[in-house]
């Protein structure tokens, strides 16, 4: 029994780790209807920059983080300037493709700037099993993931406030509905995009830090995006809480499946199981768990 609990808990934690990545997707999709293929690479790029600033320039942690945030904001501005601005009102698939180009560029830049070796990322984030849980309940909980979960919670809270309370936040929500409305709020689309992409960049940094501390910062970081996709469909592309809850469902689902079913079918089922799970949900709610309902009319 305790083992089952352990599996579920680990699933929840892993799920939150996915959510961290999914959040970035949601923010951008919500505000600009763009499915940002580059989100994973952005996480890698952010983490690389962070480590680079610390290793190559000997920045203290706090400064390095600020520096990285600055870099991500500049990046967002560039993306808007060079790319989005020229692709206003294109079909989603075109914008999607553009972000792929972006992913390629960032991938190359990251490697050229910071090199392709594994880089250790140690921000003093607690790591390893929680001894207390292990000794008193024989339950294995990864400290890092607890920390990540806490961070995610804070981040979501922050985003909620940002969206609800601030003028810019409301503007963002407006954009989500329609671009004209946004303009009426008195903020130009361009500004809004820069902001969204900056926020997404910062979210990417957080995801990069968490995954980076877990496995060292290296190219594979960019592949975590794949882990976020089922979370996205499940939660709906436009819902922040959806990203979190979707993540937890996927996390628990795949872990339980892998641990209890995997052994009988040769294992490694969690990847496709996550998608199957999401698919099943979709068949009942084609717009995802928290996505807006689609009403068809002529």
């Amino acid at each position, binding site marked *: 029994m305790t*083992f089952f609990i*352990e*599996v579920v808990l*680990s*699933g929840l*934690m*892993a799920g939150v*780790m996915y959510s961290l990545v999914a959040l970035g997707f949601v923010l951008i999709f919500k505000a600009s209807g763009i499915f940002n293929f580059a989100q994973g690479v952005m996480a890698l790029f952010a983490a690389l920059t962070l480590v680079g600033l610390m290793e190559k320039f000997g920045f203290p942690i706090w400064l390095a983080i600020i520096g990285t945030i600055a870099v991500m904001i500049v990046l967002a501005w560039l993306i808007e300037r060079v790319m989005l601005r020229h692709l206003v009102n294109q079909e989603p698939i075109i914008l999607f493709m553009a972000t792929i180009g972006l992913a390629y560029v960032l991938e190359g830049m990251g*490697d050229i700037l910071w090199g*392709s*070796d*594994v880089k*250790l990322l140690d921000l003093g984030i607690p*790591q*390893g*099993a929680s001894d207390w849980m*292990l000794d008193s309940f024989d339950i*294995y909980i*990864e400290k890092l993931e607890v920390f990540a979960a806490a961070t995610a919670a804070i981040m979501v809270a922050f985003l909620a406030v940002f969206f609800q309370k601030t003028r810019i936040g409301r503007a963002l929500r407006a954009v989500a509905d329609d671009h004209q409305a946004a303009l009426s709020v008195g903020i130009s689309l361009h500004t809004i995009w820069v902001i969204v992409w900056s926020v997404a960049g910062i979210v990417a940094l957080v995801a990069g830090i968490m*995954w980076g501390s*877990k*496995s*060292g910062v*290296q*190219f*594979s*970081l960019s*592949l*975590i995006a794949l*882990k976020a996709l089922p979370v996205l469909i499940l939660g709906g592309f436009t819902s922040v809480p959806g990203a979190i809850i979707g993540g937890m469902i996927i996390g628990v689902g*795949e*872990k339980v499946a*892998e*641990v209890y079913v*995997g*052994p009988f079918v*040769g*294992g*490694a089922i*969690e*990847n496709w199981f996550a998608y199957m799970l999401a698919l099943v949900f979709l068949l009942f709610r084609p717009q995802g768990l928290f996505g807006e309902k689609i009403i068809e009319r002529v």
Partner: protein
Amino acid sequence: MRKLTRTIVAALLAVPMISGVASAYELVMPTLDYRTGPYAPNGIPFANGYGDYLNMLNERDGGINGARISLLPCETGYNTKKGVECYENLKGEGQSGALVFQPLSTGITYQLIPKASVDEIPIFSMGYGRTSAANGKIFPWVFNFPATYWSQATVFVQYIGEKEGGMENLKGKKIALVYHNSAYGKEPIRTLEKAAEKFGFEFMALPVDHPGQEQKSTWLQIRREKPDWVMMWGWGVMNQVAIKEAASIRYPMDHFIGVWWSGSENDVLPAGAAADGYLSGAFHQPGDNFGAHDDIKKHVYDKGMGLGDRDRIGEVLYNRGLVAAMWTSEAIRKAMEIHGTNEIKGIHVRDGFEALEVDEARLKELGLANFTIPVKVTCENHEGPGQVALQQWDAKAKKWSLVSGFYEPLRDITGPLIAEDSSQYAAENNVTERSCN
């Protein structure tokens, strides 16, 4: 001159030159490295070791028997398709044509095995690739000495037996294999199953999908099953995460054995002190305290021609690249000796490999005394000695060091498997067995 013409032609057409302007006879040695992509962290040190050694030969001895080596790197990103393109691109290079390929990826090796036999270029998949290629009668062009995955697996079993106080004590023990869910990772499974039958231990295989950043469920299962020993066939980020996870669940590191591709500094450093005592297979020494390394520093790095950072010379994977280069160059030297000319081609190098013998004495001459095991390759046996040792990580000193002698593989297990697998290949691709006398 060649470069210039190349530049012009390439700029115009982007076609690689079919053959350069005749200059001194060069030994064309392509290397398929991967300095990009998810596996770059492992690919880079190997490529550096391989390249540095050959460059050192050029600088120190002006090549092999005075014939300069022209090293042609080609980036594969550990991607099979790119690997094939590299092969097609480089096989015809120069007067000699590619002398030997070092695919550095199981996937690419499998691609090249059939092609090599037609293009008559030997493949040196050192300690990786297709295990049954050890059977030289069916795979005349492929060499995977000094040892194969299957031999290694049996060696690990023996080591475990020893630690348990005798092979008989393996009965009832539980051994888990955490493997990269790909052709490479699957290699040892059958061997270990056979071994499990023979020694009566319980065997469980836990696949980890590429890239392997998320292994919670794998290690949860290990927590549930509580295997006495865990082996790992991992590559890339999978290694680091696995070792960390193992540490987190307090799995005794000295009961955790990785394949020799899961035993480099990159793999253990992220786990920090917790990785102390982790074991892995090895067939050569770590460290840079050998004559060859000094020569590399002197003749290559001091001239600013080094491929990597000076302070990373002697890392495990660097030395692996180095030893690969050493054996390859020895095979080429042998080929020149046999055919009495420097103007050799791939087909001759094959003979060189099949007559290769690098014993202690020769290693000493090469400035690599005790660096690795003596190797003797023959026409039917392309695996060579098949001996494997174990190395252990000392987290405080941040050093790997060999902690066991070299074990003989359990040929009674691997032998039949190799025969079976190679003959199946022969049947499917109607290859006829050649005679070796």
